[in-house]
C-alpha cells in the first residue's frame, strides 16, 4: 500500500522500536526509499534518542553515589529489626 508522509510520521516511534506490523514496516520502507524528508526526520529522531540516552547527557551529581551509600550504611547499621513484610 502506498502511504503518505503524515502516515509515516504517525509510526515513527513504533518503527524506531521495531514494533510495527511487517506490512506497515514494508510500506514505510518503500516510502523512505524515495522520500528524503521522511528519511531525514527518521534519522534525526533516532540520532536524538541515542544522544539523549548516553550517560554523559544526564550525569549523576558529583559525589552522589558516595552520599547515597553513606546514608544507606547508617540506615543498615541502625536497623536492628527485620526488613518489613509490609
Amino acid at each position, binding site marked *: 500500500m502506498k502511504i503518505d508522509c503524515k502516515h509515516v510520521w504517525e509510526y515513527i516511534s513504533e518503527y524506531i522500536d521495531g514494533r510495527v506490523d511487517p506490512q506497515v514496516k514494508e510500506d514505510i520502507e518503500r516510502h523512505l526509499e524515495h522520500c528524503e524528508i521522511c528519511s531525514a526526520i527518521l534519522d534525526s529522531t533516532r540520532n536524538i534518542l541515542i544522544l539523549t540516552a548516553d550517560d554523559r547527557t544526564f550525569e549523576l551529581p558529583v559525589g552522589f553515589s558516595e552520599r547515597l551509600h553513606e546514608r544507606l550504611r547508617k540506615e543498615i547499621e541502625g536497623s536492628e529489626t527485620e*526488613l518489613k513484610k509490609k
Partner: protein
Amino acid sequence: MSKRQLEAEFVARRYAVSQTTMQAAATKEAELIARIVAGEKELFHELIRPYERMVYLTVLAIVKNEADAEDGAQEAVINAYRHLGSFRAEAKFSTWLTTIAINEGRKRLRKAKGAAESSIEEELEEKEGDYTPAPLTDWREIPLEALERKELREALRKAVASLPDIYRQVFTLRDLEELNIEETAEALKLNPGVVKVRLHRARILLQKQLVPFLKSVAPARKGFFRRAL
C-alpha cells in the same frame, strides 16, 4: 548491508538484551535479595548499585530539580531497603524500585505544589496539539563524541526538561532507563496504549525542538555541486 539496516541492527541491539543474559542477571539478583532478607543486610549496597542512576533520573523526571532529586533518590533507596521483605519474587526488581521512586517523587511534588494542583496536572492530557516533526531534507549524524561539548549536553537536558510532565516521565522511563513499554506502563500505572502515545509525542517534540539547534552544531557539508547551484 545498507545504512538503514545497520542502524536498525544498532537500535535492536540497544533495546533487546539477550534472554540468557537477562535471566542470569535476574537469578543472581533474586539470590542477592533472598540473602539480604535473610539477614546479610550489607549486601543491599551491591543490589542497589546498578540502579542508582535509574532511581535518580526517575525522581528528577518528576521533581525537575537536581537537589530535590538527590534527596528523593536517597529516600526512595532507603524505602526500598526497609520494604525489601515485601518484594515478591515474581515481580521485576527494577519495576518495583521504579514504582517506589515515582511515589517518592510524587510525594515531594505534592508537598511543593499543594495537593490540588498536582492532582489536576496528572489528569491533563492534551488531545489537540501539534505533534508533527520538524521538516528537513537531509540529516548529518551527530556522533556520540560530540557529547564532550557542554552546550550540546545542556541543550539535550533542557529539551527533555521542557517536555510536558506526563510526556517527560514516560520518555525518562522508556528511553533513558530503557524499561520496555509494559514495564513503563506498570510503573506509572498507565495503560500500555497511553504509554505509546505519550512516548511518540515526547520523541516528536524533542525532534522538533532539537533539530534546529543540532543542525547549527553540525551543518550539512557543502560540496562543489551544492555551491555551483
